[in-house]
């Protein structure tokens, strides 16, 4: 167990290192680092200073180590647009994105799990078929377009909810959160629904497939034969065995929610990391882009690592070292 965790840890470190090479090659070899790192409005003195600071006159392998040193110190350079350290800029938008992703995940679980359970228990009912057809739509509908339609219906036509922005926030655990105020919640609802749509369909289908796999098992028949009430059979015997795949997917999908929040944040002008990266790509604000990419890489590597560990603890049949 311990050896497999250590091995996983080394693999994770290797992935991070590989991604730094890729991002470095992208920024320094494919693109022109002088154009990328130096603000086009900068004067000659400023240019010379930045070139010296990033060692752009050094050989490539040395540049890579300078890049790594910057990463280790959390120094990605200053944003061209805001004139402040890129890392700080991103971290300060992290709560907004986290809040959105957590809310979306919550909606996806609360809606997807019961509906999936229902569709799995009573597959031939018309309502179940309607749910399944709806989930196909949930997969096919382009997220950004659904977001526009949500704004059109609930904000423009009905006027129930605000069209964009984050609303008032309150300080909590060192970050600014909007779910603590009622107006903030109103602002959060539409973006969270929008982001949740795809994941709801995913969890729904996963749960349904799981239920249909579990139901014919002997232990379910046995539980029924024992005379247990149907409610108990479902709540204890079916649901419990569903949880492993669902928990895994939920963990994996949390990262992808954060990645996909770029779309939702852009539509609803939600001031999170995703909106920042899109604005940065459009404005060619490269220090912010590099910082964002590295943070996302780190996030995904940590997430995958944690899920792997959880796997081993949850399901003793899965042993990481058996793979090698």
């Amino acid at each position, binding site marked *: 167990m311990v050896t497999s965790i250590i091995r996983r840890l080394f693999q994770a470190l290797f*992935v991070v290192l*590989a*991604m730094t090479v890729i*991002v470095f090659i*992208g*920024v320094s070899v*494919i*693109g022109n680092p002088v154009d990328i790192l130096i603000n086009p409005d900068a004067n000659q003195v400023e240019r010379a200073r930045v070139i010296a600071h990033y060692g752009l006159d050094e050989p490539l392998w040395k540049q890579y180590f300078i890049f790594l040193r910057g990463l280790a110190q959390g120094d990605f350079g200053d944003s061209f647009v805001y004139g402040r350290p890129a890392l700080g800029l991103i971290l300060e938008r992290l709560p907004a994105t986290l809040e959105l992703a957590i809310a979306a995940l919550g909606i996806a679980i609360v809606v997807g799990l019961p509906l999936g359970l229902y569709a799995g228990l009573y597959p031939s009912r018309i309502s179940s078929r309607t749910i399944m057809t709806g989930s*196909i*739509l949930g*997969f*096919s*509908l*382009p*997220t*950004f*377009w659904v977001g*526009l*339609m949500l*704004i*059109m219906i609930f*904000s*423009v036509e009905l006027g129930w909810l605000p*069209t964009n922005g984050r609303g008032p926030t309150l300080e909590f655990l060192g970050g600014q959160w909007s779910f603590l105020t009622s107006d903030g919640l109103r602002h959060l609802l539409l973006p969270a629904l929008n982001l949740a749509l795809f994941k709801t369909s995913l969890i729904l289908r996963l749960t349904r497939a799981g239920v249909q796999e579990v139901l014919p098992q002997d232990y379910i028949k046995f539980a029924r034969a024992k005379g247990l009430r149907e409610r108990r059979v479902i709540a204890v015997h079916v649901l419990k065995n569903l949880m492993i795949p669902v928990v895994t997917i939920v963990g994996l999908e949390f*990262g*992808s929610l954060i*990645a*996909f929040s*770029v*779309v939702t944040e*852009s*539509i609803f002008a939600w001031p999170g990391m995703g909106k920042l*990266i*899109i604005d940065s*790509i*459009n404005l060619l604000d*490269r220090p912010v*882009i590099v910082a964002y*990419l590295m943070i*996302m*890489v780190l996030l*995904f*590597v940590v997430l*995958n690592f944690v899920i792997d560990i959880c796997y081993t603890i949850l399901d003793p049949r899965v042993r990481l070292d058996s793979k090698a």
Partner: protein
Amino acid sequence: MTVSNADNETIVKSEPGSSSRVFKDFFSSPGAAIGFAVLIIICGLAILAPWISPQNPYDLMQLDIMDGRLAPGSESMNGLVYHLGTDSQGRDILSGILYGLRTSLTVGVVSAIAAALIGTSAGLFAAYTGGRIETGVMRLVDLQLSFPTILMALMMLAVLGKGVTNVVIALIIAEWATYARTVRATALVEREKEYIEAARMLRLPGWRILFRHLLPNCLAPVIVIATMQVARAIGLEATLSFLGLGASVTEPSLGMLISTGYQYLLTGLYWISFFPGVALLITIVAINLVGDRVRDVLNPRNAS
């Protein structure tokens, strides 16, 4: 040549996956048949766009700013009816959709085929050679698949810059790994089968075994993934264009049309974004219906 042909033929006949069976099975599902018909119509419309659309929405000579933001069904000064309304430049939305479909479908098909070619070759090569090369390729695949597609695409666009061509490149780079993993898994199973052993006995050259014996038998999952991938690519291209990273105003795509209508949505001019979105939705659903059925039909477990 004759030997390997005879070889292939017996395989095809003994497998339940012969083309006429596949064809019949496919159309036995009404959903798939409708999806297929819709898809044919959409492709036809896209190809014929320059001849059938009421105006060329990107020829500034044909646009009249006075016709800007007209509601669906309005008539222009010179008697042209805008069935789906116009955008702020006086562009007919219907024509915009027809031209936009061209770009969207091209991006989807080109990126899916290119990714399939690269991914299939990599997976096949990895499975056939084994050893260090296999480990290397598969590590790269694992690395890539641990990040969501949109993140990979954003990464590529951040490096390459904006534009439709770069979106296609980003989509190829983001999607090839799926093919590589699937093809390798299939090829590893197929490699051990008797017909490959027989081909080896005949002392056929390696490339020939690879392409004429192994490849044809690994193609079923590739076709399934490629179909679905076209829909995914179209959706992603639209998303990226909507975010302002893809098509420019001079290269229409459905995503770009939706994005130009976005700012007018808040003032109640719904049609500029709404109709291109419906076109996008119909296209994606039609492809998914077809892909779903193709997967069921080509899956040997479902063969009657």
